């Protein structure tokens, strides 16, 4: 026990280091809030006074609203595709005993590893030939390829932890397989499904590089923000940022409410 006297000092240092890093992580988010309420007409920190003008500017500008609506549409379709195809794919990857299944598992994770710029220009080439540049659903389909690995990883983790004896019991009682999957298996995977859908939505909503190449003049919200940062930095983008942070916070809250263990699943799997 005598030797443990050094322990509290180590613990304090550790807490201090972790605290500083966490402050570093939160700093950009904290700084955006006051700027968005600035009464100054240009970027100034700390802001000289309070006003809603930048939120008004955002809401009154049809190009911002168009971009927001387009991004929500793209992210919703992307989530639908990634979940609709990704969840069945996960069943195949986790349960099949085919010899080539490991290779297919790798293939489905590959879009995360291949650099986005490579995938972007590859799709840019194909989509140009098909004249899909500027179509919102084209961006959504491209995004769904990036979202698919998240779905496979998260739902796969849930499915591996699921006790298959329950399915056999239901089958023994005469239930059909579609009914078993729908009424026994999927309800128990709910936390994984919710976090997968959430991740798919946000990953598309925030994606810029693919959208830059494929969205053409029909800008998504991240593309509009990128152009705004490149051209003129006015606090409108701070207002947009705050709204986006609130949206993410809301989704995080809902996800942790309706899918118990969502946060820890996201983090530790």
């Amino acid at each position, binding site marked *: 026990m005598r030797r443990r006297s050094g322990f509290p000092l180590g613990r304090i240092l550790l807490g201090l280091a972790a605290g500083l890093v966490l402050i570093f992580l939160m700093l*950009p988010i904290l700084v955006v809030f006051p700027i968005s309420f600035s009464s100054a007409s240009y970027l100034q920190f700390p802001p000289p006074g309070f006003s809603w003008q930048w939120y008004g500017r955002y809401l009154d500008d049809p190009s911002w609203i168009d971009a927001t609506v387009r991004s929500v549409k793209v992210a919703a379709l992307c989530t639908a595709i990634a979940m609709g195809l990704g969840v069945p794919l996960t069943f195949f990857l986790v349960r099949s005993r085919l010899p080539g299944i490991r290779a297919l598992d790798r293939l489905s994770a590959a*879009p995360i590893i291949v650099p986005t*710029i490579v995938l972007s220009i590859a799709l840019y080439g194909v989509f140009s030939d098909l004249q899909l540049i500027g179509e919102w659903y084209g961006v959504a389909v491209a995004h769904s390829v990036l979202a698919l690995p998240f779905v496979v990883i998260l739902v796969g983790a849930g499915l591996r932890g699921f006790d298959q004896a329950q399915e056999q019991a239901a089958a023994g009682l005469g239930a059909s397989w579609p009914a078993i999957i729908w009424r026994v298996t999927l309800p128990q995977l709910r936390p994984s499904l919710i976090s997968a859908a959430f991740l798919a939505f946000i990953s598309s909503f925030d994606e810029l590089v693919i959208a830059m190449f494929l969205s053409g003049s029909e800008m998504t919200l991240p593309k509009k*923000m*990128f152009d705004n940062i490149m051209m003129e930095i006015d606090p409108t983008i*701070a207002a947009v940022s705050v709204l986006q942070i609130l949206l993410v916070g809301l989704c995080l809250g809902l996800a942790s409410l309706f899918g118990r263990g969502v946060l820890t699943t996201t983090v530790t799997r």
Partner: protein
Amino acid sequence: MSSPGASRRAFGRRRELALLALGLPALLLLGAVFAWPVLRLLSLSVEGGDLAQFEKAALDGLYVSVLADSLKVAAVVTAICLALAYPVALWLSRAGRVGAAIGLFALLLPFWTSVLVRTYAWLVLLGRNGVVNRALRDWGLIEAPLPLLHNMAGVLVGMVHVLLPYMVFPIYAALLRVDPDLPRAAEGLGASSWRAFRRITFPLSLAGVSAGCALVFVLSLGFFITPALLGGGRVIMISMLIEQQVREFLDWPFAAALSTVLLIVTLAIYGLIGRLTRGGRLETA
């Protein structure tokens, strides 16, 4: 005797067919919107039937030095992330319920926040008249504003901020899997807590460390937005060159060659670290 075996085999075949039918739509999507376009792009690099595009990339000092710079940036970002992430992961793994909840929130909110929102915030924080420079001047630590933006420093800050959670999560997961009785037993046997950490907890977390390093290195190698916005043209990553070849020069074959190089380097590093990880796991098992 043989009929139950045959019917089980038939059932197994039906089961495999049903599973394949479930996976097929997604695999078709991956083939059409991922594998085929990427392979088509890569094939453009050898369209002329020779390796002229690769020769051009190898002989022009610019492209070699940009690739070397990208690797250097990725290595530095990985090292900084590891140094910052380990204490956070260790603290999280030992924190109580409330502490862990606050810590995870502080990690997840920025993680989910758009890279553009964060980049914008760094422009505000790091500029000549930004928050950081003003604070340092007010405290009398500096006289002239530090150049924190539109250079390597800005790029490093921005990239580390984006990639840090990718390092924390795997290390945290690995630390959670360490049986807390092990270091406790070592301390019971007279080891100092530092020694118990160094000889037991740390080696057991190495699988998480290498997984995090592989992820962060590979992701930073292909980084595009943050260096473009915070580097002010002074930091050129290979992804920016690829974009330039396509957008400005419309030189698809050369962009394809650079993409091939980037992809091969990425996969090689990922495979290498994956192999080391498996070795590490065997050692610590």
